[in-house]
């Protein structure tokens, strides 16, 4: 979601917790958030997630970054839902989005991708006998997470270039270079992976 929403080195209990456990907890939390309807409960979960940021000793700079992008998103969602469904429902949806995304962000801040990949591989190991290649799926997860960062970096650069030419409102001034650069990035990444022996088994 945020460019640079990546691992922040640290030694808190949350950093040291196993990636697989954290991932499972994140899934449970997401499920709970979408099952609950009471604003009080949802508010409590949001507060708990905020507290967890404190436990993880996430630097303020990172907290501010997450808060800023969540605030923009929450405001947008709130206005839209208010218009469609009314204020009460809008508050519930907002709290859900904030709780789930804040927790997901905390996961990426406190967990190395290498650990996520290893956890995914470990979790899927029993499927090996059905022909599933856990290492491939692990790599896929790692590359997907990395692709999000790469794409947001490309988008930011293209937007900047468009602004420099005074074309910030033009859709093509964004879409064309964005697509071209994304495809080229994909090409180069594929080549680099092949050169590093990925795909050789």
């Amino acid at each position, binding site marked *: 979601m945020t460019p*640079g929403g*990546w*691992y922040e*080195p640290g030694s808190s209990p949350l950093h040291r917790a196993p990636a697989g456990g954290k991932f499972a907890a994140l899934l449970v939390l997401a499920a709970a958030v979408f099952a609950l309807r009471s604003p009080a409960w949802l508010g409590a979960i949001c507060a708990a997630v905020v507290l967890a940021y404190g436990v993880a000793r996430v630097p303020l700079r990172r907290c501010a970054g997450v808060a800023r992008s969540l605030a923009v998103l929450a405001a947008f969602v709130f206005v839209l839902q208010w218009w469609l469904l009314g204020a009460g429902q809008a508050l519930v949806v907002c709290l859900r989005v904030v709780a789930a995304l804040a927790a997901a962000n905390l996961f990426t801040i406190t967990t*190395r*991708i*290498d*650990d996520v990949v*290893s956890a995914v591989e470990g979790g899927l190991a029993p499927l090996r006998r059905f022909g599933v290649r856990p*290492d491939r799926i692990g790599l896929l997860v*790692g*590359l997907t*997470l*990395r692709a999000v*960062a*790469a794409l947001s*970096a490309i988008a930011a650069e293209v937007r900047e270039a468009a602004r420099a030419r005074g074309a910030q409102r033009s859709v093509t001034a964004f879409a064309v270079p964005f697509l071209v650069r994304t495809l080229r*990035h994909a090409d*180069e*990444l594929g*080549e*680099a*992976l*092949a*050169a*590093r*022996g*990925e795909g*050789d*088994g």
Partner: protein
Amino acid sequence: MIEFEDVGHSYGERVVLTGVDLRLAERRVAFVGANGSGKSTLARMINGLVAPTSGRVLVDGLDPSRQGREVRRRVGFVFTNPDSQIVMPTAGEDVAFSLRRAGLPRRERAERAAALLAEYGLGGYADHPAHQLSGGQKQVLALCAVLALDPAVLVCDEPTTLLDLRNKRRFVELLGGLEQQVVLVTHDLDLLGGFDRVVVIDGGRVVADDEPEPALRHYRALVT
């Protein structure tokens, strides 16, 4: 030993290499030539990223287009743009990603990665977000990630093009200190002082193949 035997290549109708015969045994070899002359195409053949459409390439007697896996284990490749070579979010993870294939346990991978980064002047950057490194540091990281696989040959396609002068020098100094055989494609002619052999390519053919001084003299004469 890298051998090109009467190698030719065309992309569709377009012939980009013809009659390239080379036996490269020297430790430091450079390919130079104008844009579009075919240097990258030739370099990519060494690890099987491109297969010749005629003739053949051999690396220690192995054919990269048939025995790609064995060849890629021997040949490391550094590209121009470090951003597309770095596949993991932090420097340490990216190097560890290479070691993953060696089947090392996770902790050992992280330790080896940190040691390798330190050896090449990136000590303390293991947990650093890779996309926040400077261009020069990123290219050194890309080099580390390739060296982690312990190749015998290193092919570098314009690795210094995006770097400033200081980082260019530093990168080439790092290359100079390696025990690997190095094949460098470059437009930075003043970096070739310590090279054993310079191959000049023009219009898909080898037009000069000599020690740096005479070869570069030939290349400069070609341009003017």
